[in-house]
């Protein structure tokens, strides 16, 4: 019996250990799951407003087409382009005959050989409009007389090296030869790999080697193991330095030191000096809480904020760029990839402190593919980097509100200067407008489409704890005792101004306008300047503090210990803020009015929802035909042309809250822009319209 007791105790001990260990493991594992579950921003917190959901249909249809494999055409009719044209005679296909204007160039045939790159977006109609000859690309037809005359590339070009059809090139080769060959020949259009399609990022799950619960800088060190060159590029980028070249700021074209980090000032949260941990919670780095932050330390770069694809990475609001403690960094690091709307939006959607405050054109709804605030991001599923082409971590694009630019992007880069394709009369007239009007003027007729945006901020009234906060019609508060009065607006009509690309900018230390409103950013342009176009702009009004003696704008210390939000003492706040900004403070302050203009290049609407002719040209509303300027033709349907379905009625019908604008006219206001009146009556910028005889007869 004694012999049996010993193994019994041992086995019991062993069992106990097993139970203990397993409980521990389960607890740990559970914690881990909790961590992953805790932050799940994929689920929208706010239910989207009623918006049309049909926009993505075009994208889904294109995706469907790109996944199709059609039967291979084996026999091809041999004919020269001239023979082909002769066979068609008068019945040569026109742009109007195009069935699908948009394709995604990809196919299972290509993908089965490996996909280094993502799909290409192909603007079919645009190419047809520029080439004006379908047979340049659609060079052959099937020998079968019943087959359609024009078929897609993949009907004839499929697998490469098909032994049965020697010399028949594969689909991938056909796409590349056709596109690159033509682009090279005409010296137009992209020829580089990543100019057309984004490069796919390899799976990093097994490449990333990290210990349990690493520090953020450990993650960066792991990235640097392979991506040291990329880190070097990052060290000189705007997203790291928050300053850089300002080629579009008037008077500062050659400067390279302007930016948020130095002297840019606005009328939202004013300036970053003394407010670092809050403002730099959007910095692509870790721990910029002091002005002494080391901008040459590669290990402080935050790779994950841009390259996270797990959608679980968030930065702490007051953490000077450090990630939220709940984030599982190992999980995120193993899931790195290309930036997305989500990652760019984690900072850019919440400019001004929180979601849709600042921009009026970027909002979290853009992150959801189904949303239709923007035709590109919402309807067609564009990621930010597809337009904002990036090379060596320098991201192209510029802004009116900020001086820094690492390249420029415009609608014309893809859509060309004659974007309205087709022979219809309306297209002709619209293309005549593109020299004078930016695309967004018509295609972005109102901003803050999906979310209200702040359009006015009065800091002077802050500090009244007793005042009752009212919610406006958008459900937004009109007052915050820490921050003063606000005005929120939804679906706002933009301000319109001439803009030639240059910006007049008020920087920290500039004298304010003592007699009126101080303009912080203002587009440069004039009706007489041929490079200027009419642009829609967000108008942001504000009341902020200026030094009563030195007459420059003051930087308040707002966040953190001793900040205004804590002490409610403006004097202390300004003294500390100006000390951090490196400018003297006289001890006296006054409240001054400032305004800012912010560009509206996102949230673009497709043609159905763009402004119609009568929307701006009130004179057309009373017309019955084209007879005022042209010889009247019976076949031209004037009503259809000038009023063609692009009215607020449609938008209203689709669920947008724009009822008050239905039937409105004189939308952009010609007098404010320097015209005598409607250019149809009074002539355009550089010439009178051919038969604008009414100009004299009506005036005199």
């Amino acid at each position, binding site marked *: 019996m004694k012999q049996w007791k010993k193994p019994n105790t041992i086995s019991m001990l062993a069992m106990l250990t097993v139970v203990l260990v397993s409980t521990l493991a389960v607890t740990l594992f559970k914690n881990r799951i909790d961590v992953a579950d805790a932050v799940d921003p994929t689920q929208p917190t706010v239910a989207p407003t009623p918006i049309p959901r049909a926009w993505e249909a075009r994208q889904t249809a294109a995706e469907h087409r790109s996944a199709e494999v059609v039967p291979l055409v084996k026999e091809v009719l041999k004919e020269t382009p001239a023979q082909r044209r002769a066979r068609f005679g008068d019945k040569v296909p026109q742009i109007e005959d195009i069935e699908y204007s948009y394709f995604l160039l990809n196919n299972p045939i290509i993908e089965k050989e*490996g996909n280094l790159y993502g799909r290409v977006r192909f603007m079919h109609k645009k190419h047809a409009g520029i080439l004006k000859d379908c047979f340049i690309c659609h060079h052959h037809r099937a020998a079968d007389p019943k087959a359609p005359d024009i078929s897609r590339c993949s009907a004839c070009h499929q697998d*490469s*090296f098909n*032994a049965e059809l*020697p010399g028949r090139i594969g689909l991938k*080769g056909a796409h*590349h030869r056709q596109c*690159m060959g033509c682009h090279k020949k005409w*010296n137009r259009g992209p020829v580089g*790999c990543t100019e057309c399609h984004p490069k796919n990022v390899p799976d990093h799950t097994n490449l990333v080697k990290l210990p349990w619960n690493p520090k953020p800088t450990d993650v960066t060190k792991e990235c640097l193991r392979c991506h040291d060159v990329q880190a070097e590029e990052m060290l000189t980028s705007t997203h790291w330095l928050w300053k850089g070249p300002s080629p579009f700021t008037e008077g500062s074209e050659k400067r390279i030191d302007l930016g948020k980090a130095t002297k840019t000032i606005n009328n939202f949260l004013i300036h970053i000096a003394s407010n670092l941990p809050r403002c730099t919670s959007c910095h692509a780095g870790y721990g910029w809480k002091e002005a002494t932050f080391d901008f040459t330390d590669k290990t402080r770069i935050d790779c994950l904020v841009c390259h996270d694809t797990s959608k679980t990475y968030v930065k702490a609001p007051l953490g000077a760029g450090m990630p939220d403690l709940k984030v599982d960094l190992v999980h995120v690091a193993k899931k790195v990839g290309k930036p997305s709307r989500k990652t760019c939006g984690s900072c850019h959607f919440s400019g001004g402190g929180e979601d849709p405050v600042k921009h009026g054109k970027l909002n979290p709804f853009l992150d959801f593919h189904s949303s239709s605030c923007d035709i590109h991001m919402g309807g067609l599923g564009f990621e930010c980097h597809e337009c904002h082409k990036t090379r060596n971590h320098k991201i192209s694009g510029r802004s009116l509100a900020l001086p820094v630019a690492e390249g420029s992007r415009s609608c014309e880069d893809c859509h060309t200067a004659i974007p309205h394709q087709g022979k219809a009369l309306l297209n002709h007239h619209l293309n005549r407008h593109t020299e004078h009007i930016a695309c967004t003027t018509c295609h972005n007729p109102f901003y803050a489409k999906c979310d209200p945006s702040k359009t006015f901020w009065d800091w002077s009234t802050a500090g009244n704890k007793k005042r009752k906060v009212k919610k406006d019609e958008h459900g937004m508060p009109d007052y915050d005792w820490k921050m003063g009065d606000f005005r929120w607006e939804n679906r706002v009509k933009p301000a319109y101004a001439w803009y030639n690309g240059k910006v007049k900018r008020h920087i920290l230390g500039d004298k304010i306008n003592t007699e009126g409103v101080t303009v912080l950013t203002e587009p440069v342009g004039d009706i007489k300047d041929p490079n200027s176009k009419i642009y829609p702009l967000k108008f942001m009004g504000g009341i902020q503090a200026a030094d009563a003696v030195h007459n420059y704008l003051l930087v308040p210390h707002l966040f953190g210990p001793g900040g205004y939000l804590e002490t409610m003492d403006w004097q202390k706040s300004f003294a500390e803020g100006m000390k951090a900004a490196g400018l003297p403070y006289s001890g006296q302050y006054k409240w001054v009015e400032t305004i800012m203009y912010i560009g509206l290049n996102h949230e673009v609407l497709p043609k159905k929802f763009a402004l119609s002719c009568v929307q701006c040209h009130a004179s057309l509303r009373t017309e019955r035909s084209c007879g005022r300027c042209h010889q009247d033709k019976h076949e031209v349907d004037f009503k259809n042309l000038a009023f063609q379905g692009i009215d607020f009625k449609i938008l209203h019908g689709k669920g947008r809250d724009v009822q008050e604008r239905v039937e409105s006219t004189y939308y952009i206001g010609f007098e404010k822009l320097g015209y005598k009146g409607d250019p149809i009556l009074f002539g355009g910028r550089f010439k009178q319209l051919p038969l604008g005889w009414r100009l004299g007869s009506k005036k005199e």
Partner: protein
Amino acid sequence: MEINRRQFFGIAGTMAGGALACKPKKTQAARTLKAPPDPYGCLMDITACVGCRKCEEACNRVNNLPPPQVSFDDPRPLERKRRPVVTAYTVVNRYHTGKRDQRNQLIPTFVKVQCMHCQDPGCVSACIVGALTKKDNGAVHYDASKCIGCRYCMVACPFQIPAYDYHDPLTPKVHKSTFCYHLIIKEGGKPACAVICPVEAITFGKRRQLLGLARQKIKNDPGRYLDRIYGEHEVGGTSWLYISGEPFEKLGFLDLPTRPIPHLTETIQHGMFRYMWAPLSLFAVLGGFMWTFNRKQITGDSEPERKEGSI
């Protein structure tokens, strides 16, 4: 007839020399091209290549080669002429032949360089242990387990392709394009460089069919191509074929004879052993020596005595 020692050597030497000089001519017809009957090949259309270096990238990936110092997306390596090395079995070189486009810009021409996988390869003939073999599918295959590191293949290659692990003292290997042997032995397998080529400048297929395709291309577009298929006849034909719009001499191609490289060496070597005449004549010569020597010894038995006597 009496001949002395010197005369005998003279006659023997002349006979041997004459035999060596005469033999090759007689046996030339006997040595046939040692080529597989229906091998695979690749036809590279130099006019289509855009110099993207994707083939280098694919080659690197398929052969598990070390990552490059300069990224494959970077065009800078094209600035100098490169040769295949231990870490890169294929390279793309850029040539400016002086041709200009409408905007008066020099038009670059890109040439992919790799093992040509000769029909009758010099390296296979030179390899003394059979580590290199010409496979039926066209690949010149290297078996590292047999290699003794003599590097005769490097000397024998007319294109100077094989590279050697000089830095590796213990297990050095010869490195050269594998023709993706492990891929193309499978049904439907293709070499990685041909698959990845975005413009399909490389066509993979049966060599016979590719020659037909090349001829057809040249015939259909004589303005675009020169009437020459490099690799059709060079060193007895190669599995890799090139067609170009620029003279091959300007693109770094060597002007090589149509005779396979092993032809001369193997003819000499094989001729020597034909009908066992070389060993037989060697034995005869040696026998002759022995005979004379023996005779001298037999007859010379008295000589020392005579010498002794004279002393």
